[in-house]
């Protein structure tokens, strides 16, 4: 009988471990390499296949290459865009350090588009303004419509140059703690990796472990996220007593391809595309008369839902039209080539002559593993850190995005905090002794994986995944209320019960994707639970979290970050706490555009 796991166990000692090789993980690895810290980068995909490569729009930094700009303006936009939930010290770091980070990327070789005098070119992007909201500003640095791709490639190239040691297609299946779990003052001392190619477990010991595993958009049915974005880092930390922060804030991008959710970038509206309902009206005029189609993402997504609910979706169905026909063939083909291609391939629609059906698509997690400005993971609302554990990128919540992220700010987040993570980890590695032996640390997860792969009968993971995705889409989507969220919490608990009986068909040890997908489903259930529970408890509307039963923002009670802990022994999560928002420069105001 073959088994999904081989008996032999690898033991690897390094100083630092980076889990995930997207933008955040790669930059951290690069900093560690520069400091000469022995580092292992583990990634379940080849690095160049990380989802950072999907980002098209650009990366904002107040370089002022084409018009006047200041990092304070960028900071303000970030905070206002986030409905004042962003920590302002963090937003300041983001806006300030974006500038040297982008310059450094250029020096690493990133092929930015250029101005006529040879500098990095910049263009407009939703929500980024001049002089504290006066009008749009050219702040987004870009490389054609492949900025994320170029960031990912450039960082990977530099890692090769620096001799970074990669463990490609190693699936991290557990974190190792010594001295108790995170909520009991324990220290993270390593990770357990499952080598996909041959089914062996490897225990990695290190002084510092970075989670850079990206988001969990696959919890929703209609999503712009890759199949691999299953919240692994968040769930693993959660299972070891780390709280998750602000999970109720999940961004829906207004223009996803109907059914699949593949993203049609904001550029379509930036170039002047309209959103049209069944009656042929540009309905945004009744929601954001000034900015129309360029209002922030959360607002447009809500408007689309309102239309659909009022029966004004196209043909009464659950989508509306994105119309670019009036822009003319030339603009469409030259400025929006990727969008045109996506619509043609994935929807069979010709944007030059037909309107494109779109609907909001699950896109980005504002919440995640709480960290301080040095990317150290926090154990509680008082700011105590979990020794040895770090997080950066979409998996983390610093929080710079607050309740709603602005376009391009995610890439900035990766760069700034990925770099900070590497620098901080290098310091820690130099001043800390190696943790104690991690021998046998793989036992718990080995048992879990064996249980998954040897169960003779049970439910297929795909069924649970489908139900979860539908539940999250219907109940934890753009609009929420007590009834929907209550049902979601219950429904997730039920699915978790079924998950305990899930059955994997592939019993081999070589490239067992069946087993790993089942494992990932467990992570999705955890992150979905954290999301639903946090959303249920937040009885206000702010940014992407929109409660119909509580339509107003409530600063008196909820100008605070949610922290939620996993329930013990498989019980639903009930432990929540709130942490005040750091306010330095900008007092919360009503958010009008």
């Amino acid at each position, binding site marked *: 009988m073959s088994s999904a796991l081989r008996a032999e166990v690898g033991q690897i000692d390094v100083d630092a471990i980076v889990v995930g090789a997207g933008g955040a993980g790669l930059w951290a690895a690069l900093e560690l390499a520069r400091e000469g810290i022995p580092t292992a980068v583990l990634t379940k995909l080849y690095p160049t296949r990380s989802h950072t490569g999907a980002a098209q729009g650009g990366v904002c930094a107040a370089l002022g290459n084409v018009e006047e700009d200041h990092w304070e303006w960028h900071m303000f936009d970030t905070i206002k865009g986030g409905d004042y939930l962003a920590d302002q010290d963090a937003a300041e770091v983001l806006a300030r350090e974006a500038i040297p980070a982008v310059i450094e990327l250029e020096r690493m070789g990133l092929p930015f588009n250029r101005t006529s005098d040879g500098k990095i070119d910049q263009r407009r992007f939703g929500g980024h303004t001049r002089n504290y909201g006066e009008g749009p500003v050219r702040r987004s640095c870009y490389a054609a419509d492949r900025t994320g791709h170029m960031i990912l490639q450039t960082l990977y190239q530099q890692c*090769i*140059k*620096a*001799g970074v040691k990669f463990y490609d297609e190693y699936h991290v299946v557990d974190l190792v703690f010594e001295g108790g779990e995170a909520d009991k003052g324990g220290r993270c001392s390593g990770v357990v990796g499952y080598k996909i190619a041959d089914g062996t477990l490897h225990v990695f010991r290190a002084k510092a472990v970075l989670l850079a595993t990206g988001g969990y958009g696959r919890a929703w049915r209609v999503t712009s996220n890759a199949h691999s974005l299953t919240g692994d880092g968040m769930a693993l930390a959660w299972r070891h007593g780390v709280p998750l922060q602000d999970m109720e804030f999940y961004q829906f991008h207004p223009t996803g391809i109907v059914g699949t959710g593949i993203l049609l970038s904001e550029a379509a509206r930036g170039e002047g595309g309209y959103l049209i309902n069944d009656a042929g009206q540009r309905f945004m005029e009744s929601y954001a008369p000034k900015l129309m189609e360029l209002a922030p993402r959360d607002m447009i997504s809500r408007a689309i839902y309102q239309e659909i609910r009022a029966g004004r979706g196209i043909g009464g169905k659950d989508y509306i039209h994105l119309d670019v026909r009036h822009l003319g063939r030339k603009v469409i083909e030259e400025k929006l080539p990727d969008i045109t291609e996506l619509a043609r391939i994935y929807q069979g629609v010709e944007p030059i002559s037909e309107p494109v059906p779109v609907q909001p698509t699950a896109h980005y997690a504002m919440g995640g593993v709480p960290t301080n400005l040095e990317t150290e993971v926090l154990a509680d609302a008082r700011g105590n850190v979990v020794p040895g554990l770090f997080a950066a990128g979409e998996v983390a919540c610093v929080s710079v995005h607050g309740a709603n992220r602005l376009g391009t700010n995610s890439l900035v987040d990766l760069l700034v905090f990925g770099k900070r993570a590497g620098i901080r980890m290098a310091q820690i590695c130099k001043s800390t002794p190696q943790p104690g032996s991690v021998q046998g640390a793989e036992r718990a997860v080995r048992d879990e994986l064996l249980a998954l792969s040897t169960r003779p009968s049970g439910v297929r993971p795909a069924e649970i995944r489908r139900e979860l995705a539908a539940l999250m889409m219907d109940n934890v989507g753009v609009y929420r209320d007590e009834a929907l969220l209550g049902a979601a919490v219950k429904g997730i608990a039920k699915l978790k019960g079924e998950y305990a009986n899930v059955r994997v068909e592939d019993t081999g040890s070589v490239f067992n994707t069946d087993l790993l997908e089942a494992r990932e489903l467990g992570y999705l259930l955890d992150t979905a639970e954290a999301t639903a529970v946090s959303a249920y408890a937040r009885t206000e509307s702010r940014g992407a979290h929109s409660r119909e039963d509580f339509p107003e923002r409530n600063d008196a009670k909820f100008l605070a970050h949610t922290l939620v802990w996993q329930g013990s022994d498989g019980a639903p999560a009930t432990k929540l706490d709130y942490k005040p928002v750091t306010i330095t420069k900008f007092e919360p105001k009503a958010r009008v555009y």
Partner: protein
Amino acid sequence: MSAQKYSISGRPRPTGSRVDLYVWWAVRISSLALFVLALAHFSMTHFVFDPGIQSAEWVRQTRWNSITLRVLDWGMLMAVLVHGFLGMRTVMQDYVPSRIRQASLIGLYAIALLLFVLGTQVVVTLPMD
């Protein structure tokens, strides 16, 4: 410095050899020569004169009764030896298993040498009228 290393990974260190560069040029240049010479030769032997009349005697008395034509034909032989055999070298590098590749290539070059000798001999020694 890592920048100085050729391959951080498993790919064998490139030899930095320029042989294949020269081969590439030789094939291109000889192909230009052949385009003229070989096509002219074929036209001559098939369209200008019918193969039916081209006996050994005819070749000696008519075709090769001119130094120029002999030199041109010999030049074509040289071009073919360069082009055809370097071309075959490429084909063999592709399909002959590495165990016997070296030996086969030596065999190929031996044939080329033989053709050089035979061809040159007949061009030089065949008496003219």
